[in-house]
């Protein structure tokens, strides 16, 4: 199967009905994408296919033929990642890669409601989501001075 993975053309030989999640984790050795439930409920395995957030546990590998796949390892998400760090948006961290992939679709200065809707398919059992909203709010602040968010952490 030929597709674009994190910006690079790749050719991966795997059964077309295997879960994209397993092909990414096992054949491509990209273990940043996590499995929490295997039934599309928790969102820990969220990746982007052609820019759309999808749960990779429900995607047969055949469906990525010729498509553009992004995982946390290749995501252009430094501002989000930094803000998750600064605002303790990650506690145990198992939902974090999926949460960040799902948050990438949000525009600048998202409202609480927009964040709730964008992340409705991503379960977090640690944070109660408040710190995640604080992190995304910071990362998506329209007038951020620097894309890498070097504001002091304290």
């Amino acid at each position, binding site marked *: 199967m030929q597709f674009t993975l994190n910006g690079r053309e790749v050719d991966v030989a795997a059964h077309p009905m295997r879960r994209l999640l397993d092909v990414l984790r096992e054949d491509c050795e990209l273990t940043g994408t996590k499995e929490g439930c295997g039934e599309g409920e928790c969102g820990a395995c969220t990746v982007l296919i052609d820019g759309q957030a999808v749960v990779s546990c429900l995607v047969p590998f055949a469906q990525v033929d010729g498509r553009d796949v992004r995982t946390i390892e290749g995501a252009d998400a430094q501002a989000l*990642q930094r803000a998750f760090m600064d605002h303790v948006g990650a506690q145990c961290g*198992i939902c974090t890669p999926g949460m960040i992939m799902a948050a990438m679709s949000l525009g600048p200065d998202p409202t609480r409601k927009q964040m709730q809707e964008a992340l409705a398919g991503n*379960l977090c059992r640690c944070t109660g989501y408040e710190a995640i909203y604080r992190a995304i709010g910071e990362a998506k602040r329209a007038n951020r001075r620097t894309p890498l968010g070097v504001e002091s952490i304290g």
Partner: protein
Amino acid sequence: MSSFTERAVGRSVARKDGMGKATGKALYADDLTFPGMLYGRTVRSTIPRGRVRAIRRNFDADGFTVVDCRDIPGKNVIALIENDQPCLVEHEVRHVAEPILLLAHADRERLLAADVDIDYELGTPVLDSATSGVVFKHIRIQKGDVDARLAAAERVIEGTYRTGAQEHVYIEPNGVVAVPEDGGLAVYGSIQCPFYVHRALVTLLGDAVNHVRVVQTETGGGFGGKEEFPSVIAAHAALLALKSGRPVKIIYDRAEDMVATTKRHPSIVRHRTGVTRDGRLVAMDVDVLMDGGAYVTLSPVVLSRGAIHAAGPYRCDHIRIAGRAVMTNTSPNGAFRGFGAPQTQFAMEVHMDRIAEALGLDPVHLREINALRPGDTTATGQVLGSDCSALETLQRAVEVSGYAEKRAATDTGRRGVGISLFYHGSGFTGSGELRLASRAAIELTERGVQVLTSSTEIGQGTRTMHAQIVADALGVPYESVEVAQPDTSRVPDSGPTVASRTCMVVGGILQRAATEMRQRIGDSSPAEYFREHGSLRVEAEYEQPEWIQWDDETYRGDAYATYGWGCNVAEVELDPVTLEVRPGRLTAVVDVGKAIHPALAVGQIEGGSAQAIGYALLEHVVMRDGAMANGQLTNYVIPTTLDTPPIDVVLVENPYPGGPFGAKGLGELPMDGPAPAIVNAIRSLGIDVREIPALPEILLRASARAPGFAIAGQRKPTTAGR
């Protein structure tokens, strides 16, 4: 000593594991692979009670490793308190999903396809805790003369309160990899308490290995669900690895994790309370029943904490608390954040609102006059010091939430508001910490200072907070302190990562070790000392404060060194047609002694509160024939972003002088209050709910009771008689 003066404690410094988690580089159990690794699988019982008559393997054995109870070289038990739980069934089955046979194969498809038939002789299961004749543990707490005071009381208010089971739903299911090494065995896994697993494996494997090493991998949530259970999955992987001579990985899928592993103990709590007409509590008679499931596991200590907290944070001179944990033929119930206290404090706090209703008093006023103050004694006779903040958290919560105005506005029958006051003992109960005798160490390295403990980072911030405490006690920058990965061959036994003890107790030991190291290196900086003298390791052990007195026989004395205190105000919105309750804003005012890392502390309160909101309204473990019938995230619902209301947290810092920088325990505290606050908010709408989860069916039944419930000052709900 170095001139470094910038303090880390009290600042929200960068968490040690933040970037690894945000970039996906952090390695969890399922992210590990080893050469020649096999996958393991557990074949489980499908009946709640009976005996195994025959096991038939209907698969080609080529490439399979198969383990049954005869392959266990040591004792066939999961070593914990009573050692009554077998690792693998010999004959008797006590619950659905009990492990019987273990399989391993290099090819996961073949492993999952392997068919095993088991013939049983069926027994009659005990599925109702109220009728169980097998009691794992009795606890009796006695203060004053309850019978005489109840008989003389101006009013006696009675009630029965129920809480359901709750599934932990850590987003990473249980998982381990067992790896043979040099005549011994290493187990890497998602584990809260590496030394619990170590002890279980040593008991199980006996002389078959020359050493056992347990290493915690990054852990995707625990909440108590990875306190005692990992000994089971680790034992299975270890047996398969030992027999095959190859690394074996076992990762549960969500359904197996939900059906086969522990849950929060369901409870039934009965209260009989004597009060004066003006609302003073004069006598409390409390009966606590907890459903332990099929084996003892941690039920005695869950019951203990539950019973000790059952009278709530209230002053009363005459208290009797009788608790029992019983056997039923379900998967064992076990540790879950709060450890019995959320169940009993749910009962107490809803009962307090029923007392207020019966006396026509405001629920806040009732709590104000009865809240424990410094100098008061608890149910076990513990005299509280100045670190008691019940009244302060209550008053702050009422003030910041705008409780009074919101309470006055509940007339519409749709928007309710409720309150709860609660506390949570920090650390092991009674003499538990003394028996644990936890140790922790710090070591100078060429890079700086390394912290060595068996306390695990499970999301709550152990690494970060321990590094902060050591940095300040030693007078070095936070960035120069590293925290070692818990590996039982390298770190001292700091006790389990449970019971809100990791900051207060283990952090306190680290503070002492760092203070001693500071004295030993004298005027040198750690780097200078290391260059001149090489490494230096200082280990310290828990020292119990001299004033703590506790009697395990009578349950009298200082149950905990200190307590965290909290007050929740919960708002709800009721749909009068569907009787669904939507949680509104939740206010949490909590005394944590000292927030070592304010953002982490707030995160604990927010996250624990969300878990408690789920417990109150959504999370329904449906049991059918002794097994969880909704073991999927599709139909066991935990709060999503859309179900979780805004949570306002106010941290109060009333220090505990014995804690590091004044810190108390805080991890479990937020689990105690939201459920009763939410149910009391529903009650403010005139619906007599006394159990959780407060599903629409429960509200419907409670509404049907409403005519007898209508009391002065409360409107009958619009839903009554529907």
